Structures are given as C-alpha cells and as structure tokens.
C-alpha cells in the first residue's frame, strides 16, 4: 500500500472499543439519568505501584506502627511532613516500643507523592494508597492530621468527604515495598519481611520481576491485580 497504508490504519480505528479516554460524569446525559458520579465515571484500572494519598498503618492488635522517628520528615524532598514523637505511656502504650508519633501531619499542597517517606520508614507505618482524586476547597483541609491519616479500627483508611474512593484503592499500598525488602536488597524480592497490618493481616509479596515478565504483557495489569487481591483475601482469612 505504501503511502496510502496509513489511511487504512486511521480508518480502521472507527468504532474500536480500546479507547484511551473514558466516560466521565457531567453534562446533559448525566443530569437526565440522575445517576451517581461513581456509577457514571469509568475509571481506568490503576497501576499497581501508583502513588496516592498516604495512610498510617496499625498492627493487627491495634497498635500504631509509627514510632515517631521523623525519618519520613527528614527524607521528604517537599518538606510536607511534620512529625513530632513522644514517649509512650508505659501503662497504655500507643505503639510497641518507647516512642510513638504524637503529631503527624502531611501537607498535600506540597506533597509530590514521591514515596520516599514510605521507603524511609523502618516500620512500614506509612504507605501510600491508590487514591489521588481528593480536591479540597480550603488550605486547612489540605493538611491531613494524624487522625485523618491513621487507619480506622477495621484497618481501612478513613474517607474524607472530598475524597473519591473507588474499590480497591486502599489495597496494594506501595507495592514496590512488598517487592523489595525494607533494606532494599534484591535478594529479598518476593519475600515477606514485614509485620501484619490490621484489616489485611500479612500482605502477600508482589510477584517477582521474572514472574511479571513471563506473563503476557497485555494481561499484566489485570492478572496482577486479580491474583494479588485473591492473595489479600486469603491472607485475611489466615
């Protein structure tokens, strides 16, 4: 076909279903059908390692993981984390060990979601969810306090009114961390080396690079998410 082959390529795209844009709520059709935004909006499946809003995790017995070491604040390139540690009350400790995170604030007007805080954390207290759609309307809302960041008694992140949570966004938090050891050593790939979390138990390790490469490239995302969510379920039942 030579030069004219390109015309066929563009013509063939009509009516294809694999569109790069998706439907979103709003407009006339949306108003007439009176459907909720979440039912109308079609969201693309999020990548497993997407960096979103942080959570502060707890151990399975309800103790906070944060020990107030301030390493996250030290490593933060945007200087958006403000942490002050305090000594635990020996009779009624907040976290196992001597110290706990007394003040913990993240300013999301500054945060660049680089995930360095997650990398720095020695206890996996802070991880990132897949939530990135949270547009606040004032600066106070932008500063998340410890209460807002800390997971609830069920181990799930708290949902602020302005946040648009979708199912599965609290899972796979900081998947990279599960692929590597806390020391960052490659020999720990696929090895679970962290404590259990409330609500999730011990989370399964991410598939190793070799496994990811061997599975067909088209089905990486769908396969990865389904298998790891199944693993999450099984780990909950343990």
């Amino acid at each position, binding site marked *: 076909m030579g030069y004219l082959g*390109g015309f066929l390529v563009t*013509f063939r795209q*009509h*009516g294809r279903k694999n*569109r*790069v844009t998706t439907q979103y709520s*709003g*407009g006339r059709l949306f108003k007439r059908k009176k459907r909720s935004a979440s039912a109308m909006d079609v969201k693309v499946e999020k990548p497993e390692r997407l960096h979103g809003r942080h959570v502060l995790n707890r151990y399975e017995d309800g103790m906070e993981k944060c020990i107030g070491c301030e390493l996250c604040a030290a490593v933060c390139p945007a200087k958006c984390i403000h942490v002050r540690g305090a000594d635990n009350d020996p009779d009624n400790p907040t976290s196992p060990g001597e110290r706990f995170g007394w003040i913990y604030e993240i300013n999301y007007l500054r945060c660049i979601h680089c995930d360095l805080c997650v990398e720095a954390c020695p206890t996996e207290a802070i991880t990132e969810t897949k939530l990135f759609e949270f547009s606040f309307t004032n600066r106070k809302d932008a500063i998340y306090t410890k209460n807002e960041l800390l997971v609830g008694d069920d181990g799930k992140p708290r949902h602020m009114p302005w946040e648009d949570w979708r199912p599965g966004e609290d899972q796979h938090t900081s998947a990279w961390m599960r692929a590597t050891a806390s020391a960052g050593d490659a020999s720990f790939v696929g090895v679970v080396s962290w404590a259990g979390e409330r609500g999730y138990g011990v989370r399964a390790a991410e598939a190793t690079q070799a496994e990811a490469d061997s599975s067909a490239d088209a089905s990486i995302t769908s396969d990865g998410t389904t298998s790891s969510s199944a693993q999450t379920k099984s780990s909950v039942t343990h």
Partner: protein
Amino acid sequence: MIALDPMLEGDVLWTPLLIVVLKVLVVFVVGLVATMLMVWFERKVIAGMQNRIGPNKAGPFGLLQTLADGIKLFFKEDLLPRRSDKFVFALAPFLSLVPAFLAFAIIPLGGDYRDGNDGVVTWFGVETRVQLADPHIGVLFALAISSIAVYGIMLAGWSSGSKYPLLGSVRASAQMVSYEAALGLSLASVILISGTLSTSGIVAAQSTLTDWHVVATGIVPFIIFLIAATAELNRPPFDLVEAEQELVGGFNTEYSSIRFALFFLAEFMNTVTMSALIVTLFFGGPQPISYGGITLDIPLIPNGLEGTIWLLGKVLVFLYVYVWFRATLPRLRYDQLMDLGWKVLIPGSLAWFMLLAAQRLARNEGWNVFTTTAAAVVVLGACYALLQGAFAISNKTREREGAQF
C-alpha cells in the same frame, strides 16, 4: 452585473428582490451552522480515529460544543498587543471571514439538473436557481475570493508586531500564492471540458457518471486540485501557517477572544466551501448518480430538493476526507511543501491541461485523436526531461556554491 441570475433580467421587482434577500440570509445561516457542525464533525471523527471519545457533553452527542466554545470566546478578554498596527489588526479577521462567506455564494446548493434541465426552479412564480449568485465568471470568482482570503492571514501576522505571527504570515503568503497556481491550472482542465465558467453550467455538463469531470478530465486534475485545495485551506498536512510546534500558533498567536473565533470560523467555513467547490467541479454537484440511463433516485422527494441531499452527501464525503488527511498525514517540511507545489503539482497540472487541450483540438479539427495524443505525450516527455535536467543542474550549482537563500 446584469443577469447574475435569470430572475434579475428585465425590471427589478419586489418578489425577486425579496427572494435574493432570503437567499443571502439562508446562505449566511447555512454557512454558520455548517461551520458549527463541521467543527463538531471534525472533532468527533478525529477522536474516533485516535481512539478517543470526543466532545459528548454539551447537547446531544456534544453537538452544541462549538456553540459553547463560541459563547466562551465572545466573553473572553479582547487583547490588543501594544506593538500591533491597531487598525489592520482589527481588520484582518474580517478580511479572512468575508471571503469565506462570499465564496459560498456561487455554489449551486440544489435544483433539478437531471435530464438536461439547467437547475432552474420556480419560487413564488419567479424562475431562479438554488444558489445565491450565478455569475458568468463563477469559478474565477471563487479563485479570486480565495486569493483575497490570503490577505486576511498575511495582514494578521504582519500587524501583530510579533515574530512568530510574522513568520506564519510569510509562510502563508508564499504557500497560498504558489498553490493557487496549481489550483487554477487543474481548474482549467475542468473549464476546457465543460466549456463554461459558470458553476451551474459546469454542474449541468455532468449529467451522467462518465460525464463527471473527475472521470471526464482523467483523475489527475482532481487529485491535484484536492492537494492544492488542502494547501490553500492551510489544513494538515499543509498547515505550516499555524504549525503549533514551530510557530506557537502561527499567524493567530496574538489573537484572542472573538477575533480569534472569526479566524477559526473562516478556516472551517473555507473547508466547507472548498469541499462544495470540489463536488461542484468534479462530482456533479447536486446531480444524482446516473450511469447508462439508470439514475439513483430518492423516492418521494421532489427532484429539486433531492439535488440538495445529493450535494450534502457528496460534501460530507470530502469533509470526511479532510479530517482523514489530518488524522493520518504528518506535516510537511517547508521546502518539501514548496517542492511539491512548484516541481510536481504545477508542471503536472500544466502538462495534463496541455494533453487535454491537444485531444480537444484534434477532435475539433478532425485529426486522428490517438496520433495527436501520442505526439502530445512525446512532447510532454521531452518537457519532463528538460525540467528534470534543469532541477539536476540547479541542485548541482547549489551544492557547489552552497545554499544561498
């Protein structure tokens, strides 16, 4: 001036005058609405070709998106650059818009041209055509008007008092002037075959499929006309005038608000007009598809109205083709553009015109058509060799002396 329209022969009466006013109004409104829909059509089709959805929120299927954009542009701040030539800056959008609408006036928008009818319809007891004006110089008028449209773009860039618009307008004038020649030469073939300049005459000459000028002139003038028209319209792949990656926005960089909207409107209006012109010149305009005595007839619709439907369908095909070009072809480099215009299209259309003229002469003089054609081909071959020789020599000279622009 007299007898632009059959109904204006003799005394000017109230009814014909009112009909003319009505026609002006209709052509203006149709032009605006067609432009609006064209913008939507282009965005929707190109979205389909790029695996996107396209506008779908304002109105059904996003049809009112252009209207919403237009209203938004109206209320935007109208900036007047300090270093601009204020009068020319304000004038340029209108110089661009008015020709766009004027060119639409000579397009036959309907009427009954079949069975040797000449497209005359009777409205309120007055014989007229379904086109605003039918001057004897019809096609020349279209060429003249499309040349005037260059001034709008050229002056816009020049008066902005800024570098990128100036570069854009320099490109515009060079590009449009050089492609105008190819446009006119391929048009000459059509005029040679049909023997008239009037658009309604050209349409009337294309009653069957084999009479359509795309067939009757051989397909070459049509292809050259299509390419030259794309360049004339500054549409991709020839949109060097507003090459975003190179010139920010080209000639309209400094324009904002409704002035920008007018340029935008003119551009899409020109696309619609040029598609209609191509259909009129090469595809029989409002003529139905007819071959060997069989005519595709839409039942229940009077022939006069049917012409409009045929025209609309054919124009839509070409609008689609323009969008298709945009979605498929990458932009040409500037020297490639000039090479294509001067070294391929102009000699090509000229040669084809000579060939057709030789055939016509042979038929008129009663010579043997085949011998004449063969002789013409030999002569044109010699011309081609000379041309290639000239190119080769000039290339060599340039290599030796270095490029001097």
